[in-house]
């Protein structure tokens, strides 16, 4: 499965050990182990900031990342050990991005997401197409519920097959993504 644009930027730094470590830390935090707070904070903050920088304009990225971070820690005691901690946190960050976009839309101050950094290996036409697709995918993803965003980012971040419940949830999330895409862009 192709990774989502923001996940593609963030996942490489969080593969393997760090991802598992974050999960362990979130489990400890959910259990009330305050000693896990600082390392969890140190792991989460750069990822959330990177994610926010990919989802919203640079001027808003810091605020969105901070709001997401506070929400993640506020809900840490609800964290379910079965879930991937990074996908869970990014789902919350995606929700914050969506909230900001909606607020901006309401105020008619909506802005275009920042462009992907140029890849010297691609030709200009491919770059423009990829950039448009990324922006469109992020915009559509932002209209979904946090649980759907979390499911899709979790599936995009890992190639291994998961349980039947997860696959069912993913199937529903993708169906909703398709509907949202069609509603916005027709059948393209």
């Amino acid at each position, binding site marked *: 499965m192709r990774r989502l644009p923001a996940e593609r930027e963030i996942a490489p730094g969080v593969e393997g050990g760090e991802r598992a470590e974050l999960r362990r830390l979130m489990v400890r935090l959910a259990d*009330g182990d305050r000693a896990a*707070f600082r390392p969890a904070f*140190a792991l989460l903050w750069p990822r959330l900031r990177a994610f926010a920088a990919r989802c919203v304009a640079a001027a808003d990225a810091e605020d969105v990342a901070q709001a997401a971070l*506070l929400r993640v820690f*506020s809900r840490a005691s609800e964290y379910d050990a079965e879930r991937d901690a990074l996908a869970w946190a990014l789902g919350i960050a995606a929700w914050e991005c969506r909230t900001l976009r909606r607020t901006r839309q309401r105020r008619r101050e909506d802005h275009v997401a920042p462009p992907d950094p140029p890849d010297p290996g691609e030709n200009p036409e491919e770059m423009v197409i990829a950039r448009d697709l990324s922006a469109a995918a992020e915009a559509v993803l932002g209209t979904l519920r946090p649980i759907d965003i979390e499911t899709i980012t979790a599936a995009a971040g890992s190639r291994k097959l998961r349980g039947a419940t997860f696959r069912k949830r993913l199937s529903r999330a993708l169906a909703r993504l398709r509907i949202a895409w069609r509603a916005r862009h027709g059948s393209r």
Partner: protein
Amino acid sequence: MAAGEPDPRLEARARRAYELGRLRAALRLAPLVLAAAGAAIVCGRPLPMTCALAVALLLLSVGLAYAGGSAGRAVYPGLLAGAAPLAAPLLMATVGHACFGPACASLGLPACILGGSLAGVVIARTTARRDADLPFVLGALAVAALTGALGCTIAGAAGVLGMLAGVVVGGAPVLAAARR
């Protein structure tokens, strides 16, 4: 502060958000405690004593859940276990058993002992299944004892002591067998 280094103020805010989130989650237990106290009052338990026990139970449950760890995980099993000694004597009074003076002890006390035994079995089985440690057992016992006391005061101090004895008599063999 170097670029990219986390802001200490942000860390402090995140820590505060974490603590408030834990407190909010712990306060979700309050309706269960209030429901138990409400049931005891509806079944005729004296208001001052029930309120005192309910406040103690609320503080203990919320405090343990907020602190977390083994004792924090014991709160729900403790409340569940305590439901048996809470319900047994109250049901007995509700279905028409006269509960005043010495007549109360004739069925109220056995009901407390039986309910306590059931609570002991529930705590012991949960402890064995989770391979839990001593703080878990103590936390569950304290919560179950206070929950059960809301109902077992119907038989006076003897009812509460009988319930505690029932917890030990019912739970110890199950726990010992599971640990063997």
